[in-house]
């Protein structure tokens, strides 16, 4: 048992830290620090900076233009990114689709799509969920009928995150109605500019149009856009869900959130003293910090197992639950910390270049919005209820 990083790992961390110091634009880190929504071009700007350095695909093998890092290096990298308030790397192409194509895609698909993920030509979104198929994803109904040359896609996807920025969508579609529902699903790559694709934004409770409905009306998709074999899509989707999900706990986000919470609590005054000195409030912060310290180590335990070649299974469910609950608690404490200034609703539309004075202290901006927005952490990517079921089945064999 040795809780320390090796000298090499520490040097690597230093290298990342120095790089971020020199290359992360403050305009971006400020927005991240204050919980503001990044524009599409800001995301692209950040991807381009990382791509130039060769660090954009931190989870890809070198042969495809990735870093080839093991899970410990990736963890250090991600931790430094959040520590520096760097924008998060949009996961759909890099973290989700990339690994699936590398494992199951044809050579042609790898050659065509992977470089375009890296250079930003393709912005991917994830078309899994449907109005009737959320937790029970296998009940999805969007159909793809093969006419010998094309798949003709009809149906609807929903909750599609940042679909408004995307030009490509990877979808789970139904190609067979016989047998078990899981057995008739295929994995299809669809150009969103195709005729018959329409998008409707969904505004979330924080007032931001973060997700979308995507409608498919007789959309023609070339046969070569099928990944792997027809009716095997469920296997690929599950691979994506369990493969290398080391960052699922969001430790870096929690650490950054806790630091920001403490910053706020040091500035806010209560009974004439900084709020952080109030024993009741301090106790609540301490409680979540203690949880976070332990969870970080659980995370590292899973990561080092992964580095030794053991892919995490239901452990990632555990990390997802604990990680989301801790982050939500931190968000909730930050909301409490700003007191009455949690009440103003400040629309993000007013932010850039607006002449409006900020309302209340600057650190209060977006705190309430972030609190509400992060309720999603325990809903998406398999809700915490579903994760508990996985744990009780796989780890407890109940």
């Amino acid at each position, binding site marked *: 048992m040795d809780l320390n990083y090796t000298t090499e790992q520490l040097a690597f961390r230093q290298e990342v830290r120095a790089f971020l110091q020199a290359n992360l634009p403050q305009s971006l880190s400020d927005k991240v620090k204050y919980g503001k929504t990044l524009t599409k071009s800001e995301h692209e700007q950040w991807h381009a900076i990382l791509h130039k350095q060769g660090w954009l695909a931190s989870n890809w093998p070198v042969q495809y233009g990735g870093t080839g890092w093991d899970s410990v290096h990736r963890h250090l990298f991600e931790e430094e990114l959040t520590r520096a308030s760097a924008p998060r790397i949009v996961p759909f192409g890099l973290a989700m689709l990339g690994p699936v194509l590398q494992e199951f895609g044809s050579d042609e698909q790898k050659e065509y799509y992977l470089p375009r993920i890296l250079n930003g030509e393709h912005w991917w979104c994830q078309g899994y969920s449907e109005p009737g198929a959320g937790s029970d994803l296998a009940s999805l109904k969007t159909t793809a009928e093969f006419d010998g040359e094309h798949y003709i896609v009809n149906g609807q996807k929903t909750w599609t995150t940042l679909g408004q920025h995307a030009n490509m969508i990877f979808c789970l579609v139904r190609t067979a109605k016989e047998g078990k529902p899981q057995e008739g699903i295929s994995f299809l790559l669809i150009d969103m500019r195709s005729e018959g694709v329409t998008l409707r934004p969904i505004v979330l409770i924080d007032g931001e149009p973060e997700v979308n409905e995507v409608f498919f009306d007789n959309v023609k998709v070339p046969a070569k856009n099928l990944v792997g074999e027809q009716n095997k899509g469920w296997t690929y989707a599950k691979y994506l869900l369990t493969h290398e999900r080391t960052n699922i706990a969001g430790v870096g986000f929690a650490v950054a959130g806790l630091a920001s919470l403490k910053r706020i609590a040091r500035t806010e005054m209560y009974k004439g003293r900084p709020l952080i000195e*109030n024993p009741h409030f301090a106790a609540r912060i301490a409680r979540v910090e203690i949880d976070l310290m332990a969870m970080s180590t659980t995370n590292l335990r899973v990561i080092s197992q992964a580095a030794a070649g053991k892919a995490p299974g239901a452990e990632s469910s555990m990390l997802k639950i604990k990680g989301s609950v801790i982050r939500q608690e931190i968000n909730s404490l930050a909301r409490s910390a700003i*007191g009455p200034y949690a009440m103003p609703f400040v629309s993000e539309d007013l932010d850039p270049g607006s002449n409006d004075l900020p*309302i209340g202290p600057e650190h209060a901006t977006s705190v309430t919005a972030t*609190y509400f927005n992060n309720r999603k952490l325990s809903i998406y990517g398999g809700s915490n209820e579903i994760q508990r079921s996985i744990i009780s089945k796989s780890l407890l064999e109940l």
Partner: protein
Amino acid sequence: MNFDLTDERQMLQDSMRRYLNDSYSNEKIRSLADSEAGFCRDNWAGLADLGVIGALFDETDGGFGGAGFDIALVFEELGRVGAVEPLLDTAVLGGGILATLGTDTQKAHIESIMEGSLQLAMAHGEPQSRYELARVSTRARLVDGRYELDGQKSVVVNAATADYFIVSARTGEDTASPKGISLFLVPADAQGISLQDYPLTSGGRAAELMLDKVEVAATALLGHEGEGHEALELAHARATVAICAEALGLMEAIRTLTTDYLKIRKQFGKPIGKFQVLQHRMADMLIEIEQARSAVINLAGHVEASRDEREKHVSATKNLVGMVGKLVAEESIQLHGGIGMTEEYELGHLAKRLIMVDHRLGDSTHHLERFIELAVA
């Protein structure tokens, strides 16, 4: 012991519920979010016509209620539909102060409030005061027989529509002392007042209020100079009944919405309400909401009691309601899944309004601490 409503209260509840069900909808609330006033003036007039505002005042002030249970009844009904009309600000806080301290001339405004033609806002909280009632640094100086007010008031709900502000200002003692606080009835158009107005997460609007050498006549003083704290505390106690009862109404509405949804939403071939895990979560929610209901009853029944007894219940109830409110809002979003995260669906507004209850009149941590002080004393 009798926990039933009196006949009069039952009638008021019935007519309010009918009126609110007809005049409220999620679309309406969403459209109000972009409106200038932040609430619906027709509904305000409608509520006044129904006698809802009058029910918040004592008979001696021309009303026909004013007891803790009247306030609780009215606000629970408002909560059930997520109403955003500023009854708390105009009638309970503002009107309450007028009723306690006002001279006959000042009290004449109460009739206009009950008719629905006058709006008030309580300009008390300040950037550094957080939830402490006695922390006031806005100053009032007597200059040539007139008061001059200087300072900043934060998150003044209903500021932009108010005809008058009730402004707390220090005429003596140190910043945090309960002594030396005076209250003034200040016309909204007084020289030297400026507003930075904004919408609220809960619906409705508020403003940052700047007071720059605002001159008012000596007759603007409410009660005696330096003795405003007692009335402030009473008004806040009654407002705590109101906001906690409103929270209860919100919780009931949310529980109904969530239970209904669990019955119709199907996953894995059956209504998700059939999953035992979710049944237990709803059962826990129900237990906690009943706790909140009892806490509201406790407070409503003690708001006319002695100061110490009353305030202990204020802090107990506000603490409990804050905790339960958070549980109910968060659990209901979780059990809805993605749909619970959307602005379009009814739950969004109700859950946001419920969470925001903990940011007014003291949050659950503040009241826990205050309860300890009061209970030990």
